[in-house]
């Protein structure tokens, strides 16, 4: 598998991933908590409920997303630097470390379970991505020759 040239090179892409994941979390959190706050408020206070839910929860969701994405990117870059190759295992290993690092305050069992869960999740993502890549890959186009070839062969 070749290197991904659509993304920036390694140490600096961590910032990009932090920001991207944070933005994704905040914008998604605005939609999600906006709807949730709207539906869970009494009539007459629905707009206020939506806005206060967004204000209270969307940044937190963004922060969680951002920390996850940034940690994952950091570990991904570290694993790339150590293994000196780019394949699907990088993501799985990075996911293992990310899950472990985020759960490290919950004790040894929690850390282990969370790391394994995260690695499995990333493995599934990578597998699905590869399947899509293979399913939508362009088949190699056969060159069209002029018709003289047929006459020569016959």
């Amino acid at each position, binding site marked *: 598998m070749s290197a991904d040239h*659509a993304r920036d090179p390694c140490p600096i892409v961590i*910032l990009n991933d932090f920001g*991207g994941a944070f933005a994704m979390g905040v914008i998604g959190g605005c939609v999600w908590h906006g709807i949730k706050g709207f539906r869970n408020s009494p009539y007459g206070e629905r707009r206020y409920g939506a806005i206060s839910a967004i204000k209270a929860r969307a940044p937190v969701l*963004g922060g969680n997303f951002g*920390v996850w994405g940034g940690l994952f990117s950091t570990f991904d870059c570290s694993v790339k630097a150590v293994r000196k190759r780019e394949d699907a295992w990088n993501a799985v290993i990075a996911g293992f470390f990310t899950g472990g690092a985020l759960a490290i305050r919950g004790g040894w069992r929690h850390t282990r379970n969370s790391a394994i869960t995260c690695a499995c999740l990333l493995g599934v993502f990578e597998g699905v991505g590869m399947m899509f890549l293979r399913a939508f890959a362009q088949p190699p186009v056969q060159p069209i020759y002029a018709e003289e070839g047929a006459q020569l062969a016959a």
Partner: protein
Amino acid sequence: MSWLFGGNKQTTKEEDLKQTLGFDPAQVSDVSSIINSPGVFDASRLHPLAGLDKGVEYLDLKDEQLNDIEGSKGLIPSRSWTDDLCYGTGAVYLLGLGLGGAYGFQEGVKNLPKNAPPRLQLNTILNHMTKRGPFLGNSAGVLALTYNMIDSSLDYFRGVHDDFNSLGAGAIAGALFRSSAGLRPMAYSTALMTGAAGAWCGVKHLLK
């Protein structure tokens, strides 16, 4: 039978070759002599058009599709507004997280329980850090996100990327951030964010 007893015939062959070619082919370079000669791997002695003396260009982006709005050549080459958004938000978020974490750290050190086991002390410090760090980081990140989105929109509408956009975006972002807290906090945060945007513009001019 030359394939079996070719030994003495080879010398005559080589001499023949030497005579016909005018030089000894055994003395001419093979691969190892090329590799071992000094200075072959010197990039400056390779073909000049290979451009190897410039080093590896880490920030060459794919197809060089850089942002073509006037004045948008910033500190980091950026392809589009999403790059600005991600880098700006990520940097400010990390900065806020780090600053808040440091503040929480010193707060935790100050509030350490007396005669507590080290595990409890560590927990106190971590609790203070995780209380302060994410809060400051999230607020700063949301501010930066709003700022960058408004800034890119202003770039798009005006067609120029300059300091006025930045100041305006800072003012709007600051006003939006505290818009539900009343007029006075809104004015404060507007002024603060405008000042921060101005400071960022100054830093950009210094670094460029």
